[in-house]
């Protein structure tokens, strides 16, 4: 343990124990740093993609099997509610993708310290949202 940390404890720095889900969310007692947000969203997006796997494989199947099933696939896809689900899953995929690339950099000991890791966490949040906006514009036929 470094000197600085020991000093801080002597000065009666608050010790945070048993922080529960409410404390870090709706009660807002402890603000989560960007890296914590990226981390939990990496898990949530992965779990969400796993749960929607049968739906995605079903869409994949309909898009490829035949020209008739492709028309059916397009019909399902045109539904506004389905488009929103696809958009949500696109965000989940793109977040998981960008956060995963951040992990690969960290595996190679790049941007491991406190400041850099928060900076890259902000990039992950920004880039994944920007890519999702691009996909949304394409999905809703803007370009």
């Amino acid at each position, binding site marked *: 343990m470094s000197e600085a940390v020991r000093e801080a404890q002597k000065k009666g720095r608050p010790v945070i124990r048993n922080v529960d889900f409410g404390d870090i969310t709706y009660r807002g007692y402890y603000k989560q740093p960007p890296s914590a947000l990226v981390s939990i969203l990496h898990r949530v997006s*992965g779990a969400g993609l796993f749960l929607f796997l049968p739906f995605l*494989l079903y869409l994949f199947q309909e898009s*490829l*099997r035949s020209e008739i099933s492709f028309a059916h696939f397009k019909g399902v896809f045109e539904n506004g509610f389905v488009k929103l689900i696809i958009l949500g899953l696109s965000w989940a995929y793109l977040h998981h993708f960008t956060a995963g690339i951040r992990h690969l950099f960290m595996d190679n000991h790049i941007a491991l310290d406190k400041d850099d890791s928060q900076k890259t966490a902000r990039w992950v949040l920004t880039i994944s949202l920007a890519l999702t906006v691009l996909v949304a514009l*394409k999905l809703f036929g803007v370009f």
Partner: protein
Amino acid sequence: MQGFDTKKNIGQRRLVVGAHYGMRDWLAQRLTAILMAVFTIVLLVSFLTGQNFTYEGWAGLFARQWFKLFTMVTFFGMFYHVWVGIRDIWMDYIKSVGLRLTLQSLTILWLLACAAWTVQILWSV
């Protein structure tokens, strides 16, 4: 080479080859991630730059043998990746050993079924 005496096999002296200690799954998660990232970039670029999305164009892409195999290998890698991630989630939150083992077993069976389904989809084109 260290022996298997437990007192000599902890901390910095831990034998890191042979019994894996999760190294294999960790590495598999990374390698499959790189594979999926390459596949994602190929598909994302073709989606964002594509103009009219027709059955001929889409099925034509997957009709090529090399692309079928590329997709299959990527999906199989993805299912291994999913196994590592979902197993971590069960290990973190499910405290009951019986329930955890059940969920882990079901996850393996489900992912095997998905892998077979993927093959069926790809070779239907």
